[in-house]
């Protein structure tokens, strides 16, 4: 999954050239012509980082930055300006911008800064996803079925002596759930062994995103 960057500038040629450059560098890039359009785009699809021009009609970059920091704290922002102004730069950084670049921007430098900024953000997000999938697997795929099995066994023990057919059905359903749990637990053990080697010499080189995908696969039953 490529990191998503939203370029916000009122000048079409600047939007286009930044889009070209960042796409070539492997980012997923969208553009907006002003602050209002940027907020609409973020609402529809969040971005890892926003490149935000300061001087724009309708809504200034600083106004947009303030709203983005409030509504999308996970999204990093780099301010762009054609006119270096120290006090404005300080104001932007105080509001929460990560950087302040003067146009024309050296795109090699911009790509380097963006990579460092969004890769760490992206890893954090992927780790959160790993945690969510792991918690979901334990609670929804293991504990919930276990409770169902307990209920089934309770019901089976309370059935009349001659209700053999119903008892067999309950026990069969419980066994089916147990088989599914056992399969997932085996995969989870394998997954845990692999994950434990991350960062060790010769260990697995799975990224947090790949780990999250593997957990999703275990939960959906697509990982064998």
């Amino acid at each position, binding site marked *: 999954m490529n990191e998503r960057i939203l370029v916000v500038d009122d000048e079409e*040629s600047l939007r*286009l*050239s930044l889009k*070209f450059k960042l*796409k070539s560098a492997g980012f997923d890039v969208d553009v907006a012509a002003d602050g209002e359009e940027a907020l609409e785009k973020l609402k529809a699809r969040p971005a890892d980082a926003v490149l935000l021009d300061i*001087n724009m009609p309708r809504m200034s970059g600083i106004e947009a930055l303030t709203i983005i920091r409030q509504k999308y704290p996970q999204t990093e922002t780099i301010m762009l300006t*054609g*006119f270096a102004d120290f006090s404005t730069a300080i104001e932007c950084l105080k509001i929460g911008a990560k950087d302040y670049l003067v*146009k024309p921007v050296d*795109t090699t430098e911009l790509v380097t800064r963006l990579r460092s900024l969004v890769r760490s953000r992206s890893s954090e997000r992927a780790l959160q996803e790993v945690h969510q999938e792991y918690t979901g697997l334990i609670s929804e795929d293991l504990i919930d079925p276990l409770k169902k099995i307990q209920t089934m066994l309770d019901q089976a023990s309370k059935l009349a002596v001659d209700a053999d057919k119903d008892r067999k059905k309950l026990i069969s359903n419980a066994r089916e759930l147990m088989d599914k749990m056992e399969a997932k637990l085996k995969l989870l053990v394998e997954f845990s062994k692999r994950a434990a080697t991350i960062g060790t010499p010769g260990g697995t080189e799975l990224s947090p995103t790949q780990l999250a995908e593997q957990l999703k696969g275990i939960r959906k039953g697509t990982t064998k």
Partner: protein
Amino acid sequence: MALKKEATEIQYLYKFKFDDGTEKNFEVVLNSTTLELIRDDPNPKPEWTKLKYSQCENCPLPDSVEYCPVAVSLAKLVESFHDAASYESAAVTVETPQRTFFKKTTLQKGLSAIIGIYMSTSNCPVTDRLRPMTRFHLPFANSIETFFRSVSSYLTAQFLLMRQGRQPDWEMKHLQGIYRAVNLVNKGMTTRLLKATEKDANVNAVVILHSFGDGINYFIESGLAELEPMFAVFMKDPVAPENGADVTDPAHSHLS
């Protein structure tokens, strides 16, 4: 009947009309043969137009040259808009010998077009390479139109080189180098203008020119391929039939 004498000059008249009713006019006059700018230098020339004042890092001009030719050409325009904001709205009319263009646009966009002409016609040895494009100046052009004009101009130069028996660069390998060099001049010019102005209109106008240079690589590598469907007729049959279009071709069924 005697043929009408060809004009020796090309004039581009830029008229900026602002929301408060004020107007500013600038006339750019070029030699119609060489496309060299017929300069109307300020007197005295501002300090920031001196060559050594924030000289571009790739400037090939010798120390004996006292003033940067581009900066001097831009001086009056820059002074006139030194306190203007880039996104200020303006109704811009451009009168050329052939036609009149009009657009309600931002000041930076209007300024960008006129600054582009000054930069390529002022005898700067780096930006000179873009001079032929000014003969086909297209005010308010978007990026794709500018890229297309740029590529067309460069390929025309290659064709003329080929006709002289010299080695043409059909793959446009050196066009990217031209724009890299031009962008160093654009960058140098923004540094000058930052010192000469109070608001961002002039600077952002040059930044727009810089963005074209930044995008040209991508246009050559990917953008041109996106235009291929428009050239489908050439892709299908590179050589046009000598007696006109083949009307039996299903593509021309509407003609039959």
